[in-house]
């Protein structure tokens, strides 16, 4: 209980501190933080699905990428209003999430993980094969723009991330979250406590896909471009997983910390070019050795 109230304090602190960023840091860093907010939602959604529902998901970008690309392609090829494109992308992302429910009910642990990994490769391949529509490896530009104002964009991402964090924290600590954790621990036992776990798996995948897909859609609209390296590639998957682990799994708020840590660190290490990936990974490992429960444990203690 004590841990939970501390988590809430950390949550409020993160969003208050970041909330003043546009008046403190350079506009470029504001842009970087804007992206970090969207990225933090990817990490939170992953944490909800893996940390709470126990689904070994090595392919969060399958949902994210589907949401992002469908939004982009709708916007590029139709005259639908931007809101509809975003909704369309999010729905596509949820469908992508539901596609994984069937294997998730049959396979466990690393076997399911493999399926999710394959789904990411498959999506990447499709994008490359249909390069005339998707722009292939390079990516495509998206004409739609919500707003050109950097500060508005920042607060849009800020608010979206905060609302997602609140929503997911509520879910994680609700009866629903408890049942999800019970089915993760032992599906048969959970079912023997009268829970129809199929229903809960469907829900967990939908919720995770809803947030990550929506975040992917908003991110690419903000950037005005979508590419494999932004929302699909395995490097993104790794970044999401590393962020969650560094931040502190199964806390929802920990992943937000982790996301910021990774994105800002990479920004700071940008002069190192390609080497920065390696340095980030090594620093991540060091953090993990010193704080096995993630950065969040600095604030809430060992769990």
């Amino acid at each position: 209980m004590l841990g939970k109230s501390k988590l809430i304090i950390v949550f409020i602190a993160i969003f208050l501190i970041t909330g003043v960023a546009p008046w403190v840091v350079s506009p470029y860093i504001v842009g970087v933080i804007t992206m970090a907010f969207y990225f933090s939602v990817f990490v939170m959604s992953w944490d909800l699905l893996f940390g709470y529902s126990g689904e070994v998901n090595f392919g969060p970008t399958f949902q994210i990428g589907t949401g992002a690309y469908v939004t982009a392609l709708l916007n590029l090829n139709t005259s639908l209003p931007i809101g509809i494109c975003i909704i369309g992308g999010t729905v596509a992302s949820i469908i992508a999430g539901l596609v994984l429910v069937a294997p998730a009910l049959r396979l466990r642990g690393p076997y399911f993980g493999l399926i999710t990994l394959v789904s990411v490769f498959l999506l990447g391949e499709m994008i490359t094969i249909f390069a005339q529509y998707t722009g292939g490896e390079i990516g495509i530009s998206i004409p739609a723009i919500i707003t050109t104002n950097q500060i508005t964009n920042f607060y849009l991402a800020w608010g979206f991330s905060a609302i997602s964090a609140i929503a997911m924290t509520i879910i994680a600590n609700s009866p629903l979250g408890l049942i999800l954790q019970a089915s993760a621990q032992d599906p048969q036992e959970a079912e023997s406590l009268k829970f129809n776990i199929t229903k809960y798996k469907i829900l967990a995948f939908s919720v995770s896909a809803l947030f990550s897909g929506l975040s992917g859609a908003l991110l690419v609209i903000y950037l005005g471009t979508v590419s494999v390296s932004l929302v699909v590639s395995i490097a993104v998957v790794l970044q999401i997983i590393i962020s969650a682990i560094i931040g502190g799994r199964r806390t929802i708020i920990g992943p937000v910390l982790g996301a910021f840590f990774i994105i800002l660190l990479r920004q700071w290490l940008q002069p190192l070019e390609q080497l920065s990936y390696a340095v980030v990974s090594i620093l991540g490992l060091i953090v993990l050795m010193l704080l096995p429960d993630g950065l969040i444990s600095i604030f809430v203690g060992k769990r």
Partner: protein
Amino acid sequence: MRYLKLLVFIVGLVFISTSAALAVRPINVAIIAEEGTLVGDAIVNGAKLAVKQINAKGGVDGKPIKLFIYDDHMKATDAVQAFQRAVYDHHVVAVIGSWISEIALSLEPWAARLHTIYITTGAASPKITEKVHKNYRRYKYIFQLKYNAIEMAKTVCNFIHDDLANYHYKTAYVASENAAWTQPLDEEYLKCLPKIGIKVVGHLRFSPNTTDFTPIFSKIKAKNPDILITGWAHTGLQETVQWHEEKLPFLIVGINAQASTSDFWKKSNGATEGIITQAEGSPAPITSKTIPFVKSYEKMYNITPAYGGYTTYDAMYILANAIKKAKTTNTNKLIKALEATNYVGVMGHIKFYPKSSPFAHGIVYKKGLATGVMLQWQHGKLETVWPSYAATAKVFIPPFVKK
């Protein structure tokens, strides 16, 4: 204590990331390019050479130009990030570069958002200027210092009409790599070739990641064309080598971007003998500035410039002139000055199309102003074969190609 640590951590990060943004006196210009690619490197080299020359002569009204060079790793997202960084952290007057249309198109909304001039010196998609034409108020920041794909196709057709008439070629096969810029290119090929009496016997597009061209060539051979018309930028080397080794009996004419620079002979081990490609410039008397430019460039980089070198070199001078004329770096005034460009550069006499043109802010393509050139590899040398006033040699047909 723990909270204090976090605060120190955040403040530290913020400090480090903002410290680069100190106000500077020179005129900052950003180059976003694909380092490690032929054209991308030429863009960077062309810019550096121009800046070196301009600054040696006292800069722009006494202010030196300072270049900020970003590698986008051929990723639209990296380019977008670089664009933001250039504007926010380095306060650049303009961003120049990228030869990939997808990337240029992704940068356009950011040029509009951040009210920053963006001149692409390599991307050929006509969609780039179409945006300026359709929504001038929003996209007036964008210029295309490069013939667009439609004009490139026209150059190829004009060349075939002017220089290959004697050989009575009748049929052609169009094969381009699949990318944003080759769509309008192919469309224009299919339109202009019949007009000059060449029948298109086949058309195919292949992935830029293709590594095995055997199935593609066997399709082409089946149609037995006289000429293979190309749109190649990511690819080119492998097709060229295979064509040479199998002694395929058709002439290769079109865009083969990698073949437009001197080291392609070595790279292809001489297989490029006879290849004909369009380019924005060449070591030929296109204007009086061209040959001196190529000489300085070669001296500095040990290679002749790929097309991005010509365009970016000119872009840098055009920008410097515009700043001189506008006497300010105010964006709106600078745009006006750029629109009024009337400058003889290394690639020709450059003017921009007005906003009423569908190619608004693209280079005016016209005989007497600027048209680009056609080059051919002959005996290890890259000769200019078209237009006649700039030609350094006559077209030559490789022995295994039908005449």
